[in-house]
C-alpha cells in the first residue's frame, strides 16, 4: 500500500523539467502537487502527477540563486504552489503566469522555510515579503 501512496520518484535535471511535464500533460496526467524541501545549498522540488490512482513525482534539485522555469504554461493551476514556494523558500521561479509578487502569505519575515544562509540570498531579492496588505498585482 505504501508503494501505491508514494508512487515513483524520478530525479531529473532542471532543463528537462518543462519537456517532461509537457509530456505528462499530453499523456493525460493531472498535477497533484508541487512540494519543496529546503536544504543548506538550495531546495529540492518534487512535482507530483496523478493518473487514476497512480502517482509519479519529478524531482529537481535547485542550487540557491539558480532560476527555475515555471510550469504554469503547462499546468495553469500550479501558480499557487509556485508563488508559495518562491515566497517561503526563496526559490527563483521565473515567469509564473499569475505572479503574486511575494504576497501569498504576506508574512512579516519572509523566506522562513529556506535553509540557505541569509547572505546567499540577500543580493537579489525580488520576492521578499515586506508586509502591507496590498492586493496582489499581476494577471491571473
Amino acid at each position, binding site marked *: 500500500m505504501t508503494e501505491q*501512496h508514494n508512487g515513483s520518484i524520478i530525479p531529473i535535471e532542471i532543463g528537462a523539467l518543462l519537456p517532461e511535464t*509537457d509530456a505528462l500533460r499530453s499523456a493525460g496526467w493531472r498535477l*497533484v502537487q508541487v512540494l519543496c524541501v529546503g536544504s543548506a545549498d538550495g531546495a529540492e522540488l518534487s512535482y507530483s502527477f496523478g493518473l487514476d490512482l497512480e502517482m509519479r513525482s519529478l524531482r529537481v534539485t535547485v542550487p540557491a540563486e539558480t532560476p527555475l522555469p515555471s510550469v504554469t504554461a*503547462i499546468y*495553469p493551476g500550479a501558480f*499557487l504552489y509556485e508563488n508559495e514556494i518562491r515566497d517561503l523558500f526563496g526559490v527563483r521561479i521565473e515567469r509564473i503566469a499569475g505572479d503574486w509578487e511575494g*504576497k501569498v502569505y504576506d508574512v512579516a519575515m519572509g523566506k522562513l*522555510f529556506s535553509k540557505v544562509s541569509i547572505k546567499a540570498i540577500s543580493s537579489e531579492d525580488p520576492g521578499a515579503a515586506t508586509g502591507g496588505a496590498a492586493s496582489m498585482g499581476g494577471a*491571473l
Partner: protein
Amino acid sequence: MSGQDKRVQDAAHAPREDFVKGPTVIPFGPQHPVLPEPLHFDLLLEDEKVLGAIPQIGYIHRGLELLVEKRDFADYVHVAERICGICSFMHGMGYCEAVESLLGLPIPDRARYLRTFWCELERVHSHLLWMGLAADALGFESLFMAAWRTRELVLDVAEETAGGRVIFGSAIVGGVSKDPSDETLARCIKALALAREEVKRLSMVMLQNITVRHRLEGVGVLSADAAYALGAVGPMLRASGRAYDARSLGYAAYGEIGFETVVETAGDCMARAIVRAREIEQSFAIMDKVVAAIPAGPVSVPAKGMPPKGESFARLEQPRGEVVYYVRSNGTRNLERFRVRTPTFANVPAMVEAMRGSSLADVPTIVLTIDPCISCTER
C-alpha cells in the same frame, strides 16, 4: 530549442488581456457573512459580470508545517489535527498514515475499521455543515437550522465514540487511542439511523426546492476538462464528471468495505450539491458496514524507536477532496519536513475559473458550493 520547448515558452509569455481593460474592482471579504472564515477576493467586474477573481490568502496562515521541527514526531499529531477543525480527524490520521508508512508499522485491524468509521462520521458532519451554510447563503434559514440540528446527532456519536465533538483527538501513530465497545457502536448506529432518515428528508428539500434550483442550476459551470487540467479534487472534480476518489486507494478499511464513487456530469453548483447529498447517504451505508464487520482486538501498537531516514507520502479523501501528506525524516525524533497539500489549495484555481463569467450575485453561491476551507489552505 525543440518545437515543444518553444510552444511551452510562448505560452508562458502570452499576454493576459483580461486585466488591462480597467474593470471595476470589488473587494470581497475578509470579514463577510458568507463563511465564518476570512477569505478575500478582488472581483474584477464589467457591469454585473465577473471577469476574474484574484484571491488573497494569508489571514489565518500560522505556519504550522515548520512546527514539526520543534515537536516530537508522535506529538505532532495534535498539531496536525488542528490544521482544520472540520476535517480534524482525517488530518491527524493522514499524518499518522504517512509516519506509519515511514516506520513500516502496520496497524491493527480494529484500528483500521475505527479509522474508517470516524472518517465517514466526519464526512457526514462536514457535508451537513456545508448544507447548512449553503442554505444560509441562499436565504433558506429553516433548512440551515434543520441541517445543523441533524448535525448535532452526528456530533453526539462522535463525542460518545471518540471523546471530542470537532477535534476528535483519537488518532495516534500506531492506531487509535479510543476503543468504543461493540455495544456503544451498535447504539451509535441506531442513533445514526435516525439522522440518516432526517438527512434524506433534508436533501430532498434542498435538491427539489424550486428556488434553490433556480439559484444553483447552470451557475458556476466547470467543464470536466477544465476541472481536471486545473487540478481540482473532490466533489468539485466529481461533479464535473471525472470519477476520482482517493478512497479507491483502499487505505484504512476501504479496501475491504468497498464503496462507489459518486459522479455527476453537469459541473454546475447543483451538481456539486447533488454529489455531496449522495455522499452523505453513502457514508451512512459505509458506517453500517464497518460496524457490522469490525473485528475484535487491540486498537494500537506502540510506535517504538526513531523514524528511519526517508520520506513518505499519504493520500486520503477528505470531504473536500484528495489531500496529500508528505513527511521526511532525518533519523531523529523531530521530522525534517511535513507538508500537506489540502483539497482547497488544489481547488482555488478551479474556483477562480468557475467564477469567471458569472454574475456578482452568484459569487457567494459559487464560493459555497465549492465549500472552501481556508484554514486548510493556509495552514
